[in-house]
């Protein structure tokens, strides 16, 4: 993730044009385009979706329909560290909900939210496929396993220290 990029409309359009040209004329590219936009801006700005809709002559309802269907797409900027707590079966029976509650309390946000300082976003996600290390969470690309509520908080605090350096 490149993080949140605040750009003027003109700069945004330049970025979008590049993405659109790459996919123009290729059927079934909506998801690829949206992924590319999100990678660039950290989320899907409404103006960006409208711009794609006009450029490719796809109804914006269709673009928003696809974007809102898949859990990977976000309409709000994310924190610097995106915490994805696994809520798969193995993690559930090993107490991941306790970890989730502790993280919500510790960060002072609910599931799906971002801390005021923009440092952390918290998401509950379906299985990350590391079931034998349950409960697990992924912070940006890194998986942390065998968590307890306390250990999960420690992990986040180590990211906080890193983020403030």
């Amino acid at each position, binding site marked *: 993730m490149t993080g949140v990029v605040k750009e003027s409309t003109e700069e945004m359009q330049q970025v979008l044009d590049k993405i659109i040209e790459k996919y123009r004329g290729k*059927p*079934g*590219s*909506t*998801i*690829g385009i*949206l*992924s590319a936009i999100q990678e660039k801006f950290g989320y899907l700005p409404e103006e960006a979706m409208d711009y794609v809709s006009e450029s490719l002559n796809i109804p914006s309802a269709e673009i928003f*329909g*696809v974007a809102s*269907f*898949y*859990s*990977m*797409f976000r309409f709000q900027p994310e924190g610097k560290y995106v915490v994805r707590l696994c*809520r*798969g*079966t*193995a*993690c*559930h*029976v*090993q107490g991941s909900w*306790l970890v989730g*509650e*502790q993280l919500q*309390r*510790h960060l002072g946000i609910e599931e799906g939210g971002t801390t005021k300082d923009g440092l952390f976003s918290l998401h509950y*996600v*379906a*299985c*990350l*496929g*590391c*079931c*034998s*290390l*349950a409960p*697990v969470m992924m912070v940006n*690309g*890194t*998986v*942390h*396993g065998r968590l307890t*509520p*306390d250990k999960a908080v420690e992990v986040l605090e180590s990211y906080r220290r890193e983020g403030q350096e």
Partner: protein
Amino acid sequence: MTKTVIKVGMASCGIAAGARPVYEYLLDKLGDRKDVEIKQVGCIGLCFREPLVEVIKDGTRVMYGEVDIDSLEKIIESHILNGTPVEEKIILSDSTEAPENKTIDKQVRIVLRNTGIIDPTKIDEYLERDGYKGLTKALQMDPEAVIDEILESGLRGRGGAGFPTGLKWRFARKAAGDEKYVVCNADEGDPGAFMDRSVLEGDPHSVIEGMLICGYAIGAKHGIIYCRAEYPLAIKHLNIAIEQARERGFLGKNILGSGFDFDIYIKEGAGAFVCGEETALMASIEGKRGMPRPRPPFPANKGIFGKPTNINNVETLANVAWIILHGASEFNKYGTGKSRGTKVFALAGKIVKGGLVEVPMGMPLREVIFDVGGGIPDGKEFKAVQLGGPSGGCLPASELDTPVDYESINATGAIMGSGGMVVMDEDTCIVDVAKFFLSFVQSESCGKCPFCRIGTKRMLEILERICDGKGTPEDLDLLEDLAYKIKDGSLCGLGQTAPNPVLTTLKYFRHEYEAHVNEKKCPAKVCTNLIHYTIDPDTCIGCTKCSKVCPVGAIEGQIRQPHKIDDSVCVRCGQCKSVCPVKAISVE
């Protein structure tokens, strides 16, 4: 002198367990030596022992488990440099007794033949282990003969439905049209199943080779791997493998001089469980909302962009090259009845040896869980095993003699599914587990069918009510009634199987529902509204540990004085109980 080979398990699970610093330390200390080769390999399945380091020296193979930097220093000094293995850290050995020898010996590894053994980013290592020999053989056969071989092997879809693979191929071959697609369904979404991830990360060429053979058999030129975005390492390794296969002429035009053209590209999913369903998956590949449509027409006749399409799951495709190379009879000698070959299971939950195992079909559940999986940790009692993810069911101890084959498991009310096996012990609340699955399918329902969209929501509400202690005996009948209606009234597999976890738990664990409803008690002491934590003032020594750990400040007390929990503030996280040194805290 032969080189000493050191392999580090660097699949997602290994990295999560801390394999990266181990690997980097090895590189740092031994990377310059000409007599040592350090490799990254995939997951051998012994996830509970990770990080894993294998040392092959002077012709003998030893695997070390739970390796950290301290033990690694010892291994380098004693074994790698001086030839004396570090006995106490050995978990697997081909020359002496070792704790996990039995775990591996009980397995038959066809799908997992290379995972954890080869470096998945090097095609030569795959080639050394008979890689692409199945393809070479297939290209010399008539496409019909390839299909016959797969049919005769008895291979059935490993993604859950268990449809005969050869039959599916025949339909696709017979379908009219010059342009056809082979799709690998790598949208492994069942929580608790991770065999596809392991194969894609640890042996991507086996899947590519399977797709190639399928493409040749059905007459397709295009291959698509639909992989979920949650598996970044799998996508990375697939991309490397595809590139290498192109360079060596296994993908592209006129493959191995046969005149057969085939190429593969990867399509990343964007996070939707329902996309594992084949018609939803095709919609997603076409860039649309991943919503299922009625069948017929089946994908074999009308698939991606309206063209004939054959969709197989990762594990199914990983079997294909092996079957062609070794012959159908070699494959179908494993298994029972209509279930031939092997099945990979992901053991997780309350089990000692969590990880991946591949066993012949027909092995009883008990043997998989207790002999291969090592049973339940901490001396606890086995309560249930959940098979087949959110579409599957929970089976009690009385069903443990069920052989793992498609028909026997279906007869219990569960399904084989993709092979997730989540084991639960006495501390797991069955009603809570049913609620967990319902909340999963409810949020993953695409919303097309009212029964699935609204019905699962209503079922979830009833389960929430029961877990909150507000359920009535009539609720259980209502649950059952709704469950059958959702099964009948839904279009796709998600809705048709969504009620299975509730139906099987009602069938085998009705008493636990009744305890919640009639006595307002949670026997496993999980449901937060039905339990209370208290401190025994006579046992409490006033050490203050509990009040320090309490995340909500619900515990008060002076040092060396008995402490007290404010029940109205307590969130029932249980942390106080786990830190109490004198077991003064109880939950009722």
